[in-house]
């Protein structure tokens, strides 16, 4: 009776670590993901959920609380949970149920996050817990993001153990990804601290639906952030994301202002968020608020979850959008989910030569030396080592 397992984690043969997948079906019918068939069997499994006091919440009358992590500001009565399904009010104290309870672990190329200007060709120890603070109708990972944590199998791994595993696998980065890291804020924060103690960086792959105070605090322990900017209209966020655009734009500005490395991804969905006028408005906003050097990747949609009635994005649409964003003055515009497309490569905005050649998650020669174009000396923004 288990639900069909979608294999959204990819092989990591590029990484040279011989990772394979193991799929675990829980009694509830949901499946979770594991790091490697060999290692996964050795990792401890959680028998229940965590009961660690959450950060960033207010206590209200009658033991109600107001969550302060994301812009929803959920008011939660005793025994109830917030929208994310991972935080529960227990007698007037708000608890995170997913601390040390990752349900997905894997070693991925950093290009899969995708981060294109951050340690290219390296791997990231990638993890997620169940839950999400929005409900995108096109979610690729709904079977972990749109479920409650008791509906998947969870590992039991403290932040120090995550950092140790990342160290053992020689990954320079821990990535909080797959579902929505904002909802496992406390765990992400503490993993990042433990990672830094071992010289391992941390990156958050997020929808950016987070309040400014917790974000600012979190940025102190992160090294880079990738934000899924899902559209540039409030109506899309309302109808297809169950969120809001403005707080996401505010979060993006804060990340940039705080000086953290930032990249954007925009999933192009036919007829819903592919209007050229919107792409122009968004590109203009990026230029004004963030500058031309923030990379943005336009990725191809495939029918998924509650949005199965639309076709995959035509490559011609992606190429038109790519040209539009470039013509608006953005320096680093990419196309994703189309392996072999020339817009996967990084080009020098000055001399036009290829700086990083990519095919899917495979990396060719990197022509960046000391953060500069090898051919013309143009400074290339990013974290290169």
């Amino acid at each position: 009776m288990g639900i069909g397992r979608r294999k959204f984690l990819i092989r990591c043969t590029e990484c040279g670590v011989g990772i394979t997948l193991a799929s675990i079906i829980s009694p509830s019918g949901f499946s979770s993901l594991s790091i490697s068939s060999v290692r996964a069997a050795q990792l401890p499994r959680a028998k229940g959920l965590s009961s660690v006091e959450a950060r960033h919440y207010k206590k209200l009358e009658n033991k109600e609380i107001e969550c302060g992590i994301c812009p929803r500001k959920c008011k939660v009565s005793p025994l109830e949970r917030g929208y994310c399904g991972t935080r529960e009010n227990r007698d007037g104290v708000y608890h995170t149920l997913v601390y040390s309870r990752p349900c997905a672990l894997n070693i991925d190329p950093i290009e899969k996050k995708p981060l294109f200007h951050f340690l290219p060709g390296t791997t990231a120890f990638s993890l997620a817990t169940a839950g999400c603070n929005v409900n995108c109708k096109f979610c690729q990972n709904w079977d972990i993001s749109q479920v409650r944590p008791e509906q998947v199998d969870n590992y039991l791994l403290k932040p120090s153990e995550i950092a140790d595993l990342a160290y053992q696998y020689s990954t320079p980065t821990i990535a909080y990804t797959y579902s929505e890291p904002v909802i496992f804020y406390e765990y992400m924060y503490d993993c990042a601290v433990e990672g830094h103690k071992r010289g391992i960086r941390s990156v958050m792959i997020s929808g950016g639906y987070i309040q400014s105070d917790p974000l600012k605090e979190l940025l102190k322990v992160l090294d880079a952030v990738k934000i899924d900017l899902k559209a540039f209209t409030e109506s899309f966020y309302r109808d297809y994301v169950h969120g809001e655009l403005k707080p996401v734009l505010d979060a993006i500005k804060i990340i940039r202002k705080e000086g953290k490395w930032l990249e954007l991804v925009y999933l192009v969905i036919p007829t819903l968020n592919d209007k050229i006028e919107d792409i122009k408005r968004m590109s203009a906003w990026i230029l004004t608020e963030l500058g031309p050097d923030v990379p943005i990747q336009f990725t191809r949609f495939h029918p998924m979850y509650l949005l199965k009635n639309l076709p995959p994005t035509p490559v011609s649409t992606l190429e038109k959008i790519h040209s539009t964003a470039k013509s608006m003055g953005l320096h680093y515009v990419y196309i994703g989910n189309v392996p072999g497309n020339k817009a996967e490569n990084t080009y020098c905005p000055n001399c036009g030569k290829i700086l990083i050649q990519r095919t899917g998650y495979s990396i060719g020669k990197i022509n960046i030396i000391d953060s500069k174009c090898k051919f013309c000396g143009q400074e290339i923004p990013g974290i290169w080592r």
Partner: protein
Amino acid sequence: MTKSIVVILKSSHIIGEPVESDIPHLIELLEKGVLKLTAKNNIKDALSKLFPAVGKIGIKPNCLAGRMMSSSPVLCQAIVKLLTDTGIDENNLIIWERSERELKLAGYKINRNGKGPKVLANDSPNVGYNNEFSSFRSVGSLLTRILTDMIDYHINFPILKDHSIAGLSGGLKNLYGAVHNPNKYHDTNCDPYAADIYSLPEIKNKNKLTIMDCFKIQYNAGPSYNRKFATDSNFILMSDDPVAIDAVALDILEDIRHKNGLPDLKKAERYPSYLETAADSNHKLGNFRRDLIDKVEIIV
């Protein structure tokens, strides 16, 4: 438009949580309610009208608030006895909730495979959720297999409570326990989500009766138990119209709130507008207009 009947079954001697020795009296109350609702003269015919063929019947209490404010296990026993006394096989009954933990905390004894009515939950072994998404308007969810695969008919068995977001936790809201992602459906006072969830065919078509436990009422600070705003009472509501019974429950809740100096639910910013949505032309789940509801009081 056809009028709906909501029966108010008042006990002359039970106030507050019933005890086991009350079961014969509770059965008498329930029997009178079912007869009135079905316009039949004997209980066997009445139940045959509700459950025309042999099949499995699910009963869904609301056990979120633990022992002090959950649908009464004793009243549940009376419902079971009413059904089995008329020839329904006890092995065809499934009492269920979201989690076994909630059932146990509310005083129900888990019975996964033993003889008699099964008492189990969505998280019981070999239960879980259906593979396919069930969708209606704003809702896209996996439904518990109890509803999709294990039962033919359903009795909704909520308890009357205030709800800090929905305003009213009654019959429609109780079916949040049937979906895998209830936390996604609390925005805007649960409107339209409570109506949309109930409109899923597996719920709408299978639910034949709502029996609302009103022996204890949480009239403020719900849905969890809060002693300060809990009161004992002496009645059960029963209807085959899921909207009408909630409409009557809403009026009762507002009345108790008023008597206790609390603002009405509109002023408290949690008016359960999902009930009006449930009655609209997109849902047609039942009657919300009071002129289309006949309240029938029976005292035993």
